């Protein structure tokens, strides 16, 4: 059964140096508060996994928490580039960043395989692209019935997956709705999981489109109101589009980023967010 803990305790107990960490949320419900707590606790050598490493991973990469990134699209959606990500790839600052690059279809299926207890997934993908030349986790497989060639990708089974959801009840059952992305699969694929939520409530009233993660499929739940900001939480608050624009100038230069890191992460009390 999931234990309800503070965000600091959840990160402290579940995210270790050197871990493979997946943080998911497809534009919606991105676990930003948890990401900043990982920075605050100065985790190192993480292998970060995420379909769309946007601001949340630009921050972790810029802070030097990551040694490797497994991803399919790295940008600041609606704005442009991730400058910290580029700086790490092109200039190894602040530390070198190895990359393992897939397509969305490949990444989604890698989580599905992980959640399903299978070692790999099959898809129609990558054919004719240059990705297999650079990514050794893309192979071919032959259909034993038709002889067709298809792509195979290995399961993702993170040490820990971190997601943000709208609500949990006091027993630790998690409820999310709206765009639910690949979060369920990320949690089910992982050895451990941390779910931050907007609020812990007595009763989870059913909502159309809801996805429920039963308490026994989650390791820890932590209340983190506004924990998806600048992303959004449907039913709670909208996306802060201005912040995404602003991030472009914060992240562009190393010193502006380091100022941000000091002021907004290290000097902040956890409870201040």
């Amino acid at each position: 059964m999931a234990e309800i803990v503070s965000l600091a305790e959840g990160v402290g107990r579940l995210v270790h140096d050197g871990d493979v960490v997946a943080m998911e949320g497809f534009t919606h419900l991105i676990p930003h508060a948890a990401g900043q707590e990982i920075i605050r606790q100065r985790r190192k050598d993480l292998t970060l996994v995420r379909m769309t490493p946007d601001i949340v991973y630009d921050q972790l990469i810029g802070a030097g928490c990551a040694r490797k990134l497994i991803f399919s699209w790295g940008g600041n959606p609606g704005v442009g580039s991730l400058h910290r990500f580029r700086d790490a790839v092109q200039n190894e600052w602040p530390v070198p960043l190895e990359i393992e690059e897939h397509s969305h279809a490949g990444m989604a299926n890698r989580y599905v395989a992980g959640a399903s207890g299978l070692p790999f997934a099959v898809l129609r993908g990558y054919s004719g692209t240059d990705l297999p030349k650079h990514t050794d986790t893309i192979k071919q497989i032959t259909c034993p019935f038709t002889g067709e060639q298809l792509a195979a990708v290995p399961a993702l089974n993170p040490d820990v997956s971190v997601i943000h959801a709208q609500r949990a009840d006091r027993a630790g059952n998690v409820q999310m709705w709206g765009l639910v992305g690949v979060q369920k699969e990320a949690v089910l694929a992982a050895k451990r999981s941390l779910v931050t939520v907007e609020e812990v409530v007595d009763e989870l009233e059913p909502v159309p489109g809801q996805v429920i993660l039963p308490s026994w499929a989650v390791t820890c739940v932590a209340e983190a109101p506004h924990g998806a900001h600048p992303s959004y939480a449907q039913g709670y608050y909208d996306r802060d589009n201005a912040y995404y624009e602003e991030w472009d100038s914060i992240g562009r230069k190393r010193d502006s980023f380091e100022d941000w890191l000091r002021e907004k992460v290290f000097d902040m009390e956890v409870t201040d967010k």
Partner: protein
Amino acid sequence: MGFHWAEEGLVRGLAPREGVRHGGDGQVSTTTDAQTYTSDEMMSIAAARALGAGQRCFVGIGLPSTAANLARRTHAHDLVLIYESGTLGSKPDRLPASIGDGILAETADAVIGVPEVFNYWLQPGRIDVGFLGAAQLDKFGNINTTVIGDDYANPKVRLPGAGGAPEIAASCREVYVVVRQSKRSFVDKVDFVTSVGHGSGKGDRERLGLPGAGPTLVITDLGIFRPDPETCELVLSQVHPGVEVEQVREATGWDLTVSPELSRTDSPSETELATLRALKEAK
């Protein structure tokens, strides 16, 4: 995402010409029929016109999303918009700010998880048109959104990567590419094949087992390209109002072939322009 890069600009410099002037925002404007519009507006409108009623369209954010939403508001009311964030049949009343804008989920016929988008809806070929952007596009319609430069490990510019594009380009029945045209974006051969167009020419898609027809239309701010039926090389088949073929040639990184049936795009109608602007303003 994955087709989002096109929005970022790689802004083209066009020489001012008669009836054409630079707008305050750095874009090129054309005056016609007592209307002034930018080359970006012409591009969006031309792209919207390409979409037919009742089609299922897999929409990237940025230029493709603008065009698809414009089409839905003008001639293709029952156009079905599918976004990779997990919405089938979104009907936003403003332009979504991102591919996962809440309005896409709130107005959708169905909201589904991301694995389902790719596995149940895209992969089996249920989508008519995949609408993609590109950082680089080559003469066979191959798309690069990964790296600029020859060395993947040490790129000149690191781009966002593939996103959904490789499988959109593979599986949709047709692909339309919308891209601002310049010698930098329209190249002889892309530095990295992120998404396959027509490979190295006719027959390549079949050899690679790609079920869809690939890019059948490339819409730029200068004109419209279609693959030659024999060679699959992109051929200029249409120029927008006020654009000369020579300009297009200068903004093309390969030896441009012009269709013998070259035609000129109709100017934006008042309705098209008004609808597009209303869409862009409703934020």
